């Protein structure tokens, strides 16, 4: 298997990965390894980066600029803005682990550069270094707790 060509932005990607919640518990060495597998892409203002329901192959990390995350409501009625993400914001994290379509549409609010990490490269790293998986667990369990709490809150409001 060929080694990936080193991106000129690798140092910046490595630094930005540190701000991504999913990778918050990784060691600098682990982040540096992941950064080597990332590629970068530029997006014009208003361009759609990923679309809800589409095939999900990569995690995106915003390196510069900002994006708007929209989600189609289930009963129709159009898209609802969920959040805006700036530098260090990430989308498609769950796609690294689960094989599910994109959960939202993401549009560049201004000229934006993203780092992309392919699902397969991430999973290969997990196989090579299972410590990475252990580092992800606190983040994932934290999300489950958050969802539990939101669910309890929603049930209480009924």
């Amino acid at each position: 298997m060929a080694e990936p060509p080193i991106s000129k932005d690798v140092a910046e990607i490595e630094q930005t990965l540190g701000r991504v919640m999913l990778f918050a518990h990784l060691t600098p060495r682990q982040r540096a390894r992941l950064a080597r597998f990332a590629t970068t892409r530029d997006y014009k203002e208003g361009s759609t980066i990923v679309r809800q329901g589409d095939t999900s192959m990569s995690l995106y990390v915003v390196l510069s600029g900002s994006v708007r995350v929209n989600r189609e409501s289930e009963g129709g009625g159009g898209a609802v803005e969920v959040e805006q993400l700036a530098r260090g914001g990430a989308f498609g994290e769950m796609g690294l682990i689960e094989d599910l379509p994109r959960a939202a549409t993401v549009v560049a609010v201004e000229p934006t550069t993203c780092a992309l990490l392919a699902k397969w490269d991430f999973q290969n790293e997990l196989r090579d270094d299972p410590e990475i998986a252990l580092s992800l667990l606190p983040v994932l369990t934290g999300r489950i707790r958050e969802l539990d709490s939101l669910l309890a809150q929603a049930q209480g409001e009924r």
Partner: protein
Amino acid sequence: MSRTPAVQRLLRTWLKFSAASHFDDATWTPREAQEKKLLDLVARNKDTAFGRDHDFGSIRSIEDYRRAVPMNTYETLTPYIDRVFAGEQKVLTADAPLMFATTSGTTGRAKFIPVTPSYLSEYSHGVHVHTYRMFADFSDMLEGKILVSSSSDEEGISDGGLPFGAISGYLARKQPGAIKRFYALPYELSKVKQVESKYYLTLRYGAAADVRLLVTPNPSSMLLLADKLNVWAEELIHDIRRGGANAAYVPEGSPKALTAGLRADPARADELQAILKRDGALTPTAVWPNLRLLSCWKGGTMPLYLRKLPGVYGDVPVRDLGYMASEGRGATPLVNSGAAGVLNVTSHFFEFVPEEERDDPNQRFLTCDELESNREYYIYFTTSAGLYRYDINDVVRVVDFYRNTPVIQFVRKGQGMTSITGEKLTESQVTGALLAAVESGGYDVQHFTAKVQWGEPPRYALYAELGDSMTTERCREFLLAFDRSLCEQNIEYEAKRESTRLGAPVLRRVAAGSYQALRQKRVAEGAPESQVKIPQLSTDMEFGAALDVLEEVSLDG
């Protein structure tokens, strides 16, 4: 305990090093991989008639190639293909064809694509990448059987004495014995033309086996298989118990090999009988409890059928079969989500024209590294079949990137567009409106085709095969929902409807089985069964003439 772990390991290792690793490495630098692919292909074919006519010997770059070779269609290549078909050598390619792949598309006369050894290698490369990834994701898949439907590779003989037919049949025939053992169906089944016989024998082999992977290009075939599994439950169990197959389903004059593998298996018959007694039906989930994956087309017009698969196959994941045609393999899906795949940068050379520039005299031809996310493009193939800058008339959309390589999804045929009053309606818009309407009211629409209906005013006529729950009133509701959804999909359609330049659509309910009969008719006319696609937007003015219309429902009065 797996039955043949050594063979499985060997197969996976071979797939990895013969195809998957090469493809994977190329996705880092797709432009370089594509240029290498092109220059190799041009150098190999410089001494052919086409190569000399277009000065292949002087081509040193992608830019040189574009200057030397114009964009081609099947029609512009026909003078060369006709010579190959007649048996002349070194016309389009240096290596001689082994057969011709026929492509029926959705309409029009058959096209003949020369399948050379180099083209077969390019085509198989994509197959191997796809297969390797499926085996990597479902490691016990090879402990059971793979059920793949394929069509005959010998529909006829060319003037030069070569067979023509489906490339899937050729690949099935040429598989080494060690590989064939993993497949549930014999090659000879690909030659059965009668649809009922083909489905019965497919299920006769399939129901006796531990099927782990089910591959049929069209998801409607999966639904039909599930339906027939139940309809023929008693007959299948009877045949599995005693061996062989009901003679009514074995075409006269068939080779012995067609039924040679149908051994008696009383134990399996008992299992199936117990399922039938317990559940009152044979269902895929009960008959094939180890089914790991379904593989079929998921893009284009397929979502109408895809949405019904979970009701029949439970939570078995569905992976796209890949964007492919007789003319080449465009993309290989590496995950189950969505309907897209990674551009096959190591199979063929590809160019793209932005969809909106199709008719622009200054249209830009782009390489894969120049594509943008979520944009639609017409795709052009250059392959070792002798298709140079070939316009396949397909529109694809970039949905993601794998490393530096675009992940593309088939959207629609370029010709799948109608425009009575300037509305420029595409098949994907019709499919989108259809799905939205179906989901809005849970309408049971099994097959569907819209076509232009000339009149004062002109309108769209919707031919549909519907479930029993669709009363006339439900049909009217569906028609209204479809019309509204189409207005949302296409603002020009909405404007023309509001101005009454376009009338309200009418729904023509056709008899049950009409679409299967249409498929059978196309197969009888020579179209490979697995390639037959009945469009959801037909540009054929004769469409519907042979259908048995039971009822017409309109929104007027």
